[in-house]
């Protein structure tokens, strides 16, 4: 048997609700065993895409392929998918055992095997002793674990999770996120995870898909997407970025100067210049945490730029501080770790920006 590459493939998938197009020409692959995250602002079509894959929403155009089989017209109960919802969606009138065993009943599994499988699913989610309880006798986090157990016990081809952690409080969420990732690794099941929490997305994914207004803005490994955003939207949506329009001058050696609109000049790398095809009009993206603030004027290395500025406001975040800075007539924001004390408001400082941290995007045309 030939090795299969993709658990799920979307080919030019479109979803229209009447006049409104919720998902536009989506092309996407979910490799086997991988953890893929859909990230994007509210209303960008994450849930709609997930529901199309699940078979809960009709596909208007295009092909949906699961494990080499076109499944557009296959009803949900024949798709063999594991679904986990934001609100757990456990069956309130069934015990935890019966909740987890539910999917096995339709798969010709005999009683002894059902008991065995339910038990190991409960062990996997680390709740071995709750089989006899009812869902309302469990906490939210426990209910979500049971929902996960119920979805994976049927050994689904794909696991689909729509913001499964967002109903949990912050601490529990972090714990569950680690747990979920562990379970996914252990089972090796291809997983699509929908979230609008960027730290969740960055921490968990093998592949990150950033969506906006029904299209894929950028996809790739989280680190790649984070470091090399392909659009101002992605740069701004993932973390905090400073984005300025500017023009590119001739490179000299490994770096080239970029003239920003306000008059500031930065250095960027040849690699970045190639990314924008040596276009003249560009936008420069500098991530807030990739600028170093210090009172020292000297550049940290000879390919970095130092810009004098003054701190307007400080957001104290514990280990970090977020500075709002005015420099050469422009507003910047910088996030830096705090060394003992954060800089005070009104302090005169220098911003140091290494050339490789000045990411270029094509100029305005959107």
């Amino acid at each position, binding site marked *: 048997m030939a090795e299969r590459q993709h658990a799920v493939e979307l080919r030019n998938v479109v979803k229209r609700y009447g006049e409104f197009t919720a998902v536009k020409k989506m092309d996407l692959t979910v490799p086997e065993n991988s953890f893929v995250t859909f990230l994007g602002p509210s209303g960008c079509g994450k849930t709609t895409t997930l529901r199309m894959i699940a078979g809960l929403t009709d596909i208007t155009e295009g092909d949906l392929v699961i494990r080499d089989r076109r499944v557009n017209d296959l009803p949900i*109960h024949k798709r063999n998918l594991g679904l986990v*919802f934001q609100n757990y969606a456990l*069956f*309130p009138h069934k*015990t935890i055992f019966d909740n987890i065993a539910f*999917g096995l009943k339709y*798969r010709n599994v005999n009683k002894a095997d059902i008991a065995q499988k339910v038990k190991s699913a409960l062990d996997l989610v680390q709740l071995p002793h709750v089989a006899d309880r009812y869902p309302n006798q469990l906490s939210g986090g426990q209910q979500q674990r049971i929902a996960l157990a119920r979805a994976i016990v*049927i050994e689904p081809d794909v696991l689909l999770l729509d913001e499964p952690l967002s109903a949990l409080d912050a601490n529990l969420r972090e714990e569950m996120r680690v747990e979920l990732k562990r379970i996914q690794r252990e089972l090796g099941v291809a997983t699509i995870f929908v979230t609008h929490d960027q730290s969740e997305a960055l921490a968990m994914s093998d592949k990150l898909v950033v969506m906006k207004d029904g299209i894929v803005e950028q996809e790739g490994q989280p680190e790649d997407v984070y470091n090399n955003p392909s659009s101002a939207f992605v740069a701004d949506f993932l973390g905090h970025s400073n984005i300025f329009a500017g023009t590119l001058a001739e490179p000299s050696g490994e770096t080239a100067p970029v003239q920003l609109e306000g008059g500031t000049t930065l250095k960027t790398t040849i690699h970045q210049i190639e990314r924008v095809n040596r276009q003249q009009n560009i936008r420069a993206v500098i991530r807030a945490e990739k600028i170093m603030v210090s009172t020292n004027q000297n550049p940290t290395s000879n390919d970095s730029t130092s810009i004098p500025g003054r701190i307007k406001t400080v957001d104290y975040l514990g280990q970090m501080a977020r500075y709002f800075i005015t420099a050469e007539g422009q507003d910047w924001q910088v996030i830096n770790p705090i060394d003992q004390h954060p800089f005070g408001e009104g302090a005169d400082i220098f911003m140091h920006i290494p050339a490789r941290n000045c990411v270029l995007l094509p100029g305005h045309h959107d």
Partner: protein
Amino acid sequence: MTNGWSLIRIATILVYLFLFAPVAVVILLAFNANQFGSFPIEGFSLRWFDSLLHNDAIVRAFKTSLLLGILTSAISTTIGTMAAVAMVRYDFPGKKAISSLLIAPILIPEVVLAVALLLFLQFLALPKSFGLLLMGHVVFTLPFVLLVVQARLVSIRRDVEEAAMSLGATPIQTFFEITLPLMLPAVMAGMLFSFTISFDDITGTLFWKPGGVETVPTQIFAMLRNSISPEINALGAVMVIFTVAMPLVATAIARRVSAARIKASKAK
């Protein structure tokens, strides 16, 4: 402040007295030994209940009412539940219109509805029959089932059903495994409603019943026209006890059943 409250309290008590005293009087007089219902009661006796049992017309009327009530509630509950599922879970053209149409019988005065159905029958040149009577009762009780079940169904999250289907249950299996059990209390309530409404109904029944067929309410009505026999008090008492006890017994049984189910699953 306290004065105001005690006034309200007194008024409330008086209103309830006014409402329930006649019922109490009927029940009390049913046990009166004397032929002529008057206070004070002279002697306690069950003779009127006994004579009820030996009154063929009444026994027949009781059987008719019982059959009518059971059939009405079975049909109304089935159709009403299916209609509720259609209204809440599916979108189809003309949904609003159909919904208003199904609810209309509670909004239209019963007499109008009764006459309308009768005229319709005449238009079709069909004779009155038990079937028509049953149909009338179904039309009349359907809205109650529909409203009660609909209200419950709205609160059952769609994602629970979606989860069931994702696990391999067909839509029909999902209905019987998930949706129906979750809305069972409402379905039972609808069933009780339609039974008691059918059992008590007089206006529509008077119009629709074929000649010679009497239900308990129309029988009482007919008897009242001749004389005020103490049998009527006894029959009234039986009706009251029946319609009050029914829901109570049903709720008790429902509690038992669900408790037993929980116990059974605990024992596993």
